[in-house]
């Protein structure tokens, strides 16, 4: 449901309502004290403003009763807030037993997710509504963080260990997720969408029957299946150029002309590889005419597109280096 608090995202998980309630409580309490102190200050500033140039104030040392009072009361309130927050957190950190387990790998700068039946996604997470979901997360390189504002959940993804987080989506819809631990150049674009679906839809999606397929993940499978990965090595050390950053970049061809790495160029390269040879490379790519379907070309293109934000190697890139600044 829409949060009762203004500017808050949807309350789309089991935690959201409780977290927002605690937030409201803290807000009310802090607002009360902030207003109280502010009013007192403004009141005193007016009531006790200097009347004559050489006036002095009263000779007051203090008041022990007040000191004890304004120490104890904030302490009690603070402990109350702490306890509520701790309760939410402990519940959040201890996952229930009956979870749908999704494996997640973060790397600079994309997310790879895998459903229980092995189906893979890139930068997307499909889950059924009203089901406890647990994410088991690892990192291939630096520390990342998986954050879904609408669920009010977040957890660091740390290399060298597995971190888990759980939640139960309570409302269907599409919700933004973000990487929220600074991880380098493209930290800010390392996000995606969580799609919460009705259970029947989810089941259909999971088995690949529905049209809502994650093309990039399908493309990645094809990339391996057709052995493209044996020549197009990401770090540029293969027989063929790296495809990192290719989509949208400018390719320098052997004949000195340039072409933009768009869908058309990719399709042509798969079907008629000898039409355009990248400068510095041999025309050794075999043609896949008759071996790939149009749908497979689309999926491969989607996968290559998802490599847009991957680190472009200094040597062996398919694209020309971008001039310092704009991309």
């Amino acid at each position, binding site marked *: 449901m829409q949060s009762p608090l203004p500017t808050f995202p949807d309350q789309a998980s089991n935690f959201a309502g409780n977290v927002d309630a*605690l937030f409201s409580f803290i807000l009310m309490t802090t607002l009360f004290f902030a207003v109280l102190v502010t009013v007192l200050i403004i009141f005193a500033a007016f009531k006790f403003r200097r009347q004559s140039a050489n006036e002095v104030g009263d000779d007051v040392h203090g008041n022990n009763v007040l000191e004890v009072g304004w120490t104890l009361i904030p302490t009690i309130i603070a402990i109350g807030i702490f306890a509520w927050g701790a309760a939410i957190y402990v519940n959040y950190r201890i996952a229930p037993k009956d979870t749908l387990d999704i494996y997640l790998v973060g790397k600079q700068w994309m997310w790879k997710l895998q459903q229980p039946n092995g189906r893979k996604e890139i930068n997307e997470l499909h889950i059924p509504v009203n089901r406890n979901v647990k994410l088991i997360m690892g990192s291939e390189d*630096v520390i990342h963080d998986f954050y879904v504002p609408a669920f009010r959940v977040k957890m660091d993804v740390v290399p060298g260990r597995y*971190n888990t987080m759980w939640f139960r989506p309570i409302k269907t819809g599409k919700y933004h997720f973000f990487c929220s631990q600074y991880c380098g150049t493209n930290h800010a674009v390392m996000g995606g969408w969580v799609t919460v679906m009705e259970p029947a839809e989810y089941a259909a999606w999971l088995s690949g029957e529905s049209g809502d397929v994650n093309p990039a993940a399908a493309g990645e499978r094809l990339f391996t299946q057709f052995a493209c990965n044996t020549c197009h090595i990401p770090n540029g050390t293969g027989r063929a150029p790296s495809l990192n950053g290719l989509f949208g970049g400018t390719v320098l061809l052997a004949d000195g002309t340039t072409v933009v790495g768009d869908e058309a160029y990719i399709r042509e390269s798969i079907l008629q590889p000898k039409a355009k040879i990248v400068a510095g490379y041999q025309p050794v790519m075999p043609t896949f005419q008759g071996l790939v379907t149009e749908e497979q070309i689309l999926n491969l293109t989607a996968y290559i597109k998802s490599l847009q934000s991957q680190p472009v190697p200094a040597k062996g890139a398919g694209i020309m280096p971008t001039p310092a600044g704009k991309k």
Partner: protein
Amino acid sequence: MREQATGPALKLPEKHYLNATYGIRSWLLTTDHKRIALLYLASVTFFFFVGGFFAMMIRLHLLTPNGYLLTPDQYNRMFTMHGVAMIFFFLIPSIPAVMGNFLIPLMIGAKDLAFPKINLLSWYVYVVGGLFTLWSMINGGLDTGWTFYTPLSTVYSNSAVAPAVVGVFITGFSSILTGLNFLVTVHTMRAPGMTWFRLPLFVWAHYATSIVMILGTPVVAITLGLAAMERVFGLGFFNPAMGGDPILFQHLFWFYSHPAVYIMILPAMGVISELIPTFARKRLFGYHFVAAASLAIAVIGFLVWTHHMFLTGQSTYAAVAFSFLTFIVAVPSAIKTFNWTATLFGGSISFDTPMLYAFGFLGLFLVGGLTGLFLGALGVDINIHDTYFVVAHFHYIMVGGAVMGYLGGLHFWWPKITGRMYPEWLARIAAFTLFIGFNFTFFPQFILGIMGMPRRYHTYPPEFQIYNVMSTAGASILAVGYLLPMVYLTWAAFYGKVAGDNPWPATGLEWKTQSPPLTENFDVTPVVTWEAYDFHNRPDLGLDVPAGKGSPVVAPAHGDD
């Protein structure tokens, strides 16, 4: 200010610390704590501008969701270097190295700090550290975040990490030497009669700060040292690929960096504890409690560092313990706030510029401190950790609190430091400008955090734009608020109206000397027989104390009697 009898206009004293000796060597080789304070003033102001420049780039770039001003790498360098410059080279040294250095000997009746040469050394160490960091900035800068999390900083970053880390490492020793100097000075150099509970609260605040400096800074030093070794020589303490643990880095880093925030705020609180009694002409309510609260903040501040790491996947129960301690550390700050407020009641309040800054501090520190409660509450932190809510929270404390304290103190003691007054009306306008600009810059960031905008983002979804625009607009007003004092304080140092010994008047020992003071501070060592902020037993101040009040114990008219 006190009403002065009409007479000839005041003149600067003939001899004082500024004209005692001339020439660049007399400044660069000085051991006079007051001159060293001015050397620090110049260098921290320089780094304030460096950090401010990076802030300007950040805010300009974030005007649009797909910022056109900077590339992602350039933006990441901007926010990193903004943090490094502001935290290590401006905020941490600012009040202690400028005002602490200048005032502590004067406030306790000493001729100088315990170790004047070490004081000068601390400035040179700061400068060398600063040069290393500038070298990093000139060589393309640093893009790891000021927190240098591993393995991003030690293995993956392609920026000038090593020189910056070395620079911060070196500058840490400046902090340690300053803290050591202050601690020893307060213990052994107090004038006769200046007992612990007659000390101004500014001194108590710096004492507490010094405890934090000497215990915490060495830990970040060794941590950064190990990180630099990892970066340069491939050691593996923090690199998981070699069996190391990135979370170990975070623990070691935050063990210092959390207490560091108390290094940044305690001195400002000390300034406020001077300003409010002075401009309400009334002793500070609950002196002992405020002194004790400073020490409590320093000690408990060492026990909460893991609240920066609630979501790293660490032990749930450790997180619960640290959250509890985090709420406890909030209590002494609340005690201080209530005591400052209570001081106003029954006072005789004037609205000179330093007092305006004190009011600003009270309001903004209140917001900053209270928003810390949201972050300390584990359940809410899950949602707002690493979002703009955090950015807003710490800027309210660091800028709304610490910088307000710094500027308030600078204005309050400018007549003592330079012998001349700043222009009051222009200063009041600047204070208001600053307050308004500040709130417009940072309040919208709380909303951005609640909406889910993560921090350290060079691009953001379009629905966040309106608050980013508001924030940048506020920043441009804030910039004016900062530039004005830079200009008129400099002007006033040379051309302002001569202020006299004690223009306000205030009760501290520093005000019983000439303005500017002699190099050796006091001709005759004062003997203290009065309490701090005791307006009722100070006939030397020339104020109208009601008849029948006050005790027979009086202060001599001038420190040299």
